[in-house]
């Protein structure tokens, strides 16, 4: 067992626990290997989705997000997330509530109806930042048992991990580096491809507004990665995972294509390099299948 690197409240959201539990299992397992303890947030809800509820009613979106933040505050823990939607919502809400005392006052009046209060004492962390900055590349390197030397990876960031950069604080949204560092530490190669930073197509209610049109973005993204010689796509977002993974079955049906391009959440990819099985990481219970190259 490693040294303790802290305890965090895991904000699950919707897609991770309710559609891709492999992402939840992989993240908990990888974090545990490095001495990071995870506590469940009892009574948490949808974040709620920033592009969806933010588009329908910001005045409802904010108190629901604040309530989730208040649960972590009651636990006296910082949060980690495995979805850019959750990150977008919770981190943005935390930022706005800290910036605008009057907004905070109004939101707390709503939360007071059931005895909760947002204080501003937690911090919202993305799980890939925990990997990169808390665990760190040196510790990660020590646990790589199955280097993925001959694997070419298409990095997909999604949108709300990087943007708006003034709130996210991970540097320029045009020149990110965190996922690339995490890919390289496994021995794999991150390969540049056309429109690498393009959205998956699902956000902001677009998938619901027009599913086929949203899948067309995804199709373009996958073609670009395949044409650049990539073997798989690695990303930090459960909602992108849904669009990129299940979306392939949907587009194969709608467009008559035959995609089976492996999609992995960052901790699932690192888990494989650490010697965990695809069954442990839930990679055998999704739409796209893993090639021998990743499972050797």
């Amino acid at each position, binding site marked *: 067992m490693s040294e303790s690197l802290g305890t965090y409240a895991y904000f699950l959201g919707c897609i991770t*626990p309710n559609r891709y539990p492999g992402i939840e299992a992989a993240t908990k397992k990888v974090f545990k290997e490095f001495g990071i303890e995870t506590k469940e*947030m009892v009574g948490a809800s*949808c974040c709620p989705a920033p592009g969806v509820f*933010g588009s*329908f009613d910001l005045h409802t979106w*904010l108190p629901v997000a604040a309530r989730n933040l208040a649960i972590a505050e009651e636990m006296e823990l910082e949060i980690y997330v495995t979805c850019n939607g959750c990150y977008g919502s919770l981190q943005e809400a935390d930022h706005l509530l800290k910036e605008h005392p009057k907004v905070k006052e109004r939101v707390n009046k709503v939360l007071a109806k059931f005895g909760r209060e947002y204080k501003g004492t937690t911090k919202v962390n993305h799980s890939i930042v925990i990997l990169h900055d808390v665990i760190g590349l040196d510790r990660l390197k020590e646990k790589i048992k199955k280097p993925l030397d001959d694997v070419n990876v298409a990095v997909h960031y999604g949108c709300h991990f990087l943007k708006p950069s003034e709130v996210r604080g991970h540097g320029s949204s045009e020149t990110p580096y965190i996922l690339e560092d995490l890919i390289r530490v496994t021995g794999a190669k991150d390969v540049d491809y056309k429109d690498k930073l393009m959205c998956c197509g699902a956000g902001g209610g677009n998938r619901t507004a027009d599913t086929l049109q949203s899948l067309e*973005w995804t199709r373009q993204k996958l073609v670009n990665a395949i044409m650049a010689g990539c073997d798989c796509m690695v990303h930090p977002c459960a909602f992108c995972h849904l669009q990129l993974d299940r979306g392939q079955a949907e587009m194969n049906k709608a467009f008559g294509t035959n995609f089976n391009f492996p999609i992995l959440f960052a901790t699932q990819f690192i888990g494989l390099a650490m010697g965990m099985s695809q069954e442990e990481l839930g990679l055998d219970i999704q739409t796209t299948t893993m090639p021998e190259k990743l499972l050797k």
Partner: protein
Amino acid sequence: MGTLYEDIVDYGGEVFGREHMETLKACVQCGKCTGGCPSGRNTALRTRKLMQMALLDLREEIFNAPELWFCTTCFTCYERCPKGVKTTDIIRTIRNLAAKEGHMSVPHRMIGVYVLKTGHAVPIGPDQMKLREKVGLDSQPPTTQKYPEYLKEVQEIFKTTGYDAMIDFDWETMNLRGMEKGGKK
């Protein structure tokens, strides 16, 4: 009700701060937003046009434009705007105002139904519970869908802000009103 610009500053301002929303006035119609827009490649969405329509107070035209809903809120235009116009937050606020005036599709309103029923936009079902067990997790996460007492808190928020009325939610059937007749609006 003021002009669309005034409504954007008032409604969005209460969440983002008025100065944030007032950046709309700084738009010089350079088109950098549209140039980098991934949706614009595939859809009729033209962010520059939306900004101009908002400034020209074309309320009904903008609320009835299907492409208003084809922005994925990717924030590419927001990052690149040379004048600091907070485009994505302006679009989200315009959508809020459109939704309040009844311009909200049934599938979009249904997302609210799922949250009102379970606390989740994407709830869990029996098949997914089995998947959770397969990877060694509890069959149900400890969230609002599992605990009705916590779900009530989320429902209370929706009632307080009037979200339930906005989507025409029927608390008796726990569905959109009129859905038994195939829905409306």
